[in-house]
């Protein structure tokens, strides 16, 4: 009897080739970086010693400064998110093919957004520090730039998803472009907009710490200071605090997103 293949031979061969390529890449990369998983585990004692003796117990050395830093970091994230939301909304309506008053603008806005998005916020911070010096203004500005890039793209996609269908209905009614935007597109995409805004807030709380650490101010800068001064107990205290804030914000935004999308 002839053998019946459940999966086509060609597909089997392709999977095999793909696996082989991954294996080869892994081998080359490991040799290149001299990364040896075994020796890492052999040296674990050092790691544990550092973790248990140097980092623990965590300390909160200067509560007022730390609280101020955290407030600064959160404010940075909120300011950047909300401001970029306003900018992105306007640009998204100009950049979506369904709402744009003239088409060439779409391409320009999309290009601008991808440029803003594809350069990481850390790099933007470095660039801005050269121009403005260290401080939370630079941090907020760097976050604003990347968030804009990300939100413009998400908002455009949300608008485009509204569906040609309800759009078609309103066009056939004889409604003007502006009326279609306010009466159909905005109500239909509002939950999407809010959900993306909440997500950007979440991301910004996390990255505002990082941006802060490289010179953007806030709790990140304080943490970096402790590490540079070898005050590991205090650094650990701040790290745990940051983790707690991030988790709380995550829970909060998840809750809000469920409410919004319901």
């Amino acid at each position, binding site marked *: 009897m002839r053998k019946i293949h459940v999966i086509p031979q060609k597909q089997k061969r392709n999977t095999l080739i793909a696996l082989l390529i991954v294996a080869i890449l892994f081998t080359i990369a490991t040799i290149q970086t001299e990364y040896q998983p075994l020796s890492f585990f052999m040296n674990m004692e050092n790691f544990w010693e550092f973790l248990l003796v140097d980092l623990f117990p965590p300390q909160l050395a200067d509560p007022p400064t730390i609280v101020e830093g955290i407030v600064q970091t959160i404010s940075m994230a909120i300011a950047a998110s909300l401001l970029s939301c306003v900018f992105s909304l306007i640009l998204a309506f100009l950049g979506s093919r369904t709402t744009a008053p003239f088409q060439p603008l779409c391409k320009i806005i999309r290009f601008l957004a991808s440029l803003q998005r594809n350069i990481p916020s850390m790099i933007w911070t470095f660039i801005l520090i050269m121009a403005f010096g260290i401080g939370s203004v630079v941090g907020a500005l760097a976050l604003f730039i990347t968030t804009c890039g990300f939100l413009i793209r998400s908002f455009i996609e949300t608008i485009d998803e509204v569906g040609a*269908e309800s759009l078609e*209905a309103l066009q056939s009614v*004889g*409604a003007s472009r502006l009326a279609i935007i306010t009466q159909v597109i905005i109500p239909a995409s509002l939950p999407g907009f809010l959900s993306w805004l909440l997500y950007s807030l979440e991301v910004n709380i996390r990255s505002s710490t990082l941006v802060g650490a490289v010179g953007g101010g806030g709790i990140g800068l304080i943490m970096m200071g402790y590490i540079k001064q070898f005050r590991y107990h205090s650094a650990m205290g701040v790290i745990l605090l940051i983790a707690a804030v991030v988790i709380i914000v995550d829970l909060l935004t998840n809750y809000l997103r469920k409410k919004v999308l319901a």
Partner: protein
Amino acid sequence: METVLSIQNLKKYYGATKAVEDISFTVDAGEVVVIIGPSGAGKSTVLRCINRMIEPTEGSILFEGHDMAKIKKEKDLKAMRRRIGMIFQSFNLVQRLSVFQNVLHGRLGYMNTASAVMGRYAEEDKQKALDILAMMGMESMIYKKAGELSGGQKQRVGIARALMQNPALLLCDEPIASLDPSSSKIIMNQIQDMAKKRGIACIVNLHQVDVALAYADRIIGIHQGRKVFDDVPEKLTKEMIETIYDAPIEELTVGLEEGVALHA
């Protein structure tokens, strides 16, 4: 009866593809014209050429004294579209908005830009929307979100929205294709009612030959973009149905035997 719409030599080409090839017909006030034909025959294209949701390649579309095909200015086109209601297969409502808001959308074409943008509807428009919804037996769900309705209810909202336009012509693109038989009947009855009571000219695209036979004042058969039949339902023979659908009648009747056999 007064002629509302007169189409002459309508053509729509997509490159070398001839979606609609030289179709002419007229529709009178209060008349229900049903267009039948296989999927891809060009039924939807004909309908959308009438209100210029699709740009016709050639031909004239005379509606209320204006040739729709020759209108250049967007403003003039919008003014004409107000008088043409459209009903869709997938209802095309804004799911997140209430029934009431969706019905009021039918007035947007008549309002000045500022009021339309702000969604400030006149009290008399609101009253009219309430009256139409009450007539359709939907007064208890005006504040319900359109997304929460059943298919049949959604289509009733679609019809209500079209009626808000005060249309002289109603274009119905497969209005019952996504509905169950009993809702289909309600919707078809309502469309027929609109035509007879308000004197609206109705063009209805349909898949179902039996429904066409039951509701049409006149049937137009389209095959590969060409009109092959245009007469009263009684004249639609078995042979003609086979020509329109390009298949023997046995393959066309999935449980529709009674309806077709009645006339064939």
